[in-house]
């Protein structure tokens, strides 16, 4: 018996070490990635200049580019990647569905829809108003996900949940596209809908950072409860958890994080699917580890994807949402093949 407890403690220690390792290395790579991203682009700025201008801001043209255009965009990428990844992790825990993710469940599309309406009404709408629109839109789908996943003890079968989310997502994104088509902003709006960080500005990024910080802290506090919830409905109730309340809070966090991300970067899919899966295979099923690691890994993934999106078809931009989708689908396929019996 003692040996068993010792191996368990050792396992936990291993996981803790692994998580710390991931976070530390991840942050270092993130820093490198951000710097790289800032230096690359239509006008190549070498790394030295990048570092210098970050440390001591000046007014020459390069610094201006870095400060006003490149940096906000890259920071946005990092934040959005982190927040979408955490949203995905939370959703997978809450719905006990390995392929849950804010874009599969229609949440990002909901935000995109309301934002398209906002843009169509007033092309230069302010960042905070935009974000509110995004939250409303994200809540549309979020509410449905909440209702469907908390119906009864058994809940709706995972596949039905995915189908409902997908259906809702498809509807909302086609409405958003229709609005884009008929307003005068057609191609730019459509581009943004497909997921693009081009329009990221400091105002939006700062707002996202504050909303997101709040959401992430809440998520970390909620994480042990999510772990228990992910074990099973009956088990959680048996352990005295108020499952519906936890689910509600979780969905609210997801709405905040996803909605905010969409407001800054458009509809970016599959990130919340890929990252938690990778993280889970490295650090195990405890959400206290999964959530922080997802933050770091998600940020990295999007920053590097953004670099690729800019580099692939120079000087044109490739919509990053399409890129993450193409990245994500092989993952999706792999997971479905591995785990469908349990669905």
């Amino acid at each position: 018996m003692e040996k068993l407890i010792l191996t368990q403690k050792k396992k936990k220690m291993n996981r803790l070490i692994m998580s710390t390792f991931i976070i530390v290395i991840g942050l270092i790579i993130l820093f490198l990635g951000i710097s790289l991203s800032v230096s690359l682009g239509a006008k190549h700025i070498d790394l030295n200049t990048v570092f210098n201008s970050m440390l001591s801001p000046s007014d020459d043209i390069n610094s201006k580019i870095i400060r006003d255009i490149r940096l906000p965009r890259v920071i946005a990428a990092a934040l959005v990647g982190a927040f979408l990844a955490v949203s995905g992790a939370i959703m997978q825990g809450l719905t006990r569905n390995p392929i849950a993710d804010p874009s599969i469940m229609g949440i990002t599309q909901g935000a995109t829809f309301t934002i398209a309406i906002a843009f169509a009404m007033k092309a230069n709408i302010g960042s905070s108003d935009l974000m509110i629109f995004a939250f409303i839109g994200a809540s549309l789908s979020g509410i449905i996900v909440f209702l469907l996943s908390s119906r009864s003890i058994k809940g709706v079968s995972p596949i039905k949940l995915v189908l409902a989310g997908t259906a809702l997502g498809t509807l909302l994104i086609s409405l958003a596209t229709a609005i884009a088509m008929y307003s005068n902003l057609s191609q730019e709006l459509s581009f943004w809908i497909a997921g693009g960080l081009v329009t990221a500005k400091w105002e939006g990024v700062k707002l996202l950072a504050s909303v997101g910080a709040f959401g992430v802290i809440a998520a970390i506090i909620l994480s042990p409860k999510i772990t228990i919830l992910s074990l099973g409905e009956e088990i959680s109730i048996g352990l005295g958890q108020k499952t519906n309340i936890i689910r509600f809070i979780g969905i609210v966090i997801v709405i905040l994080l996803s909605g905010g991300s969409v407001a800054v970067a458009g509809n970016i899919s599959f990130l919340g699917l890929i990252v938690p899966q990778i993280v889970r295979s490295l650090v195990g099923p405890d959400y206290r580890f999964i959530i922080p690691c997802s933050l770091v890994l998600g940020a990295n993934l999007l920053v590097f994807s953004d670099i690729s999106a800019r580099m692939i078809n120079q000087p044109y931009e490739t919509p990053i949402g399409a890129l993450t989708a193409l990245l994500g689908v092989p993952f999706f396929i792999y997971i479905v093949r591995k785990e469908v019996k349990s669905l």
Partner: protein
Amino acid sequence: MQTHKGKKKLILIISILFILLLSIFIISFNIGTFAIGPIDVIKTLFGQGDSKQELVLFTMRLPRIIIALLVASALAVSGTVLQGITKNDLADPGILGISSGAALAVVIYIYFMNGKAYSDVSLITIFTMPIIALLGAGFAAFLIYTLAWKKGINPTRLILMGIGINSAFSAILILFQFRFSTQDFNKIMIWTSGSIWGTNWSYVIATLPFVFIFTVLIIYKARYLDVLSLGDELSVGLGVNIEKERRTLLIYTVALAGAATAVAGTIAFLGLISPHIARKLVGPKHKLLLPTSALVSSIILLLSDTIAKNVLAPIEMPVGIVVSIIGVPYFIYLIMKE
């Protein structure tokens, strides 16, 4: 709870559906930039109208309506079969990515063929379009089937693979779209949102044979579909070769979905809600279910098309969006009802 519909009641239901269809048929002639009243419609159909009415009716409205009927029926039959094969009554060719495969193929084809838009679509392109769409749909189905195959087909895995492939193709579609000029881009957007853009008789001739042949083939297999709905074990016991039959039916479904997409873009959810409604009306036996599905679907599509053309006049909304607006809430309601 379903109580048994006696034969009389069934006949009543089908008759009502027919009448509904006919009414919408006539109404849709009446709405639009050149309105033709119901009596005039009937007169013109029998050769008694004036030349203006005849022109509008026969060269513009009628072929378009017939295409709508063909598309609706194809999607409905396709959806009914998919729901039977996947044993999941939430399956639909749109969700499963078969339509987006077809759409992608058509877009790529037009991109390489004409270099520009479809304003230039020639007669040759019209006739080869269904074939290209079919190839695209077939490729998508092949991918989905192969990826879902792991010592046999698990219906849930099939659906999920479909969703995955759908996302992938949609993403590639987006990447392609941005290569076109703004005008063409818009046109393609409208098309992929589902709109009946083929409005002359050549489209009818190109699509009719496909839809007809495959629908007949499927109705021939109606009793296989019935047996398959009993589950794998009973189906085997009754002598059905389940893998072979599922594959054959999938091929037919793909052909129909492909043909429909070729002419009308991606119209999702039609193939989902029509079988549902039909099942509630006439029960689960496919010999009756399939035609009823087609009827219901035609009514919905014609209705949606009329709404799409007129609610935001003179702008024409893509009919696919109207169908989605009707279809998705109903779909979610269905899921919630369980």
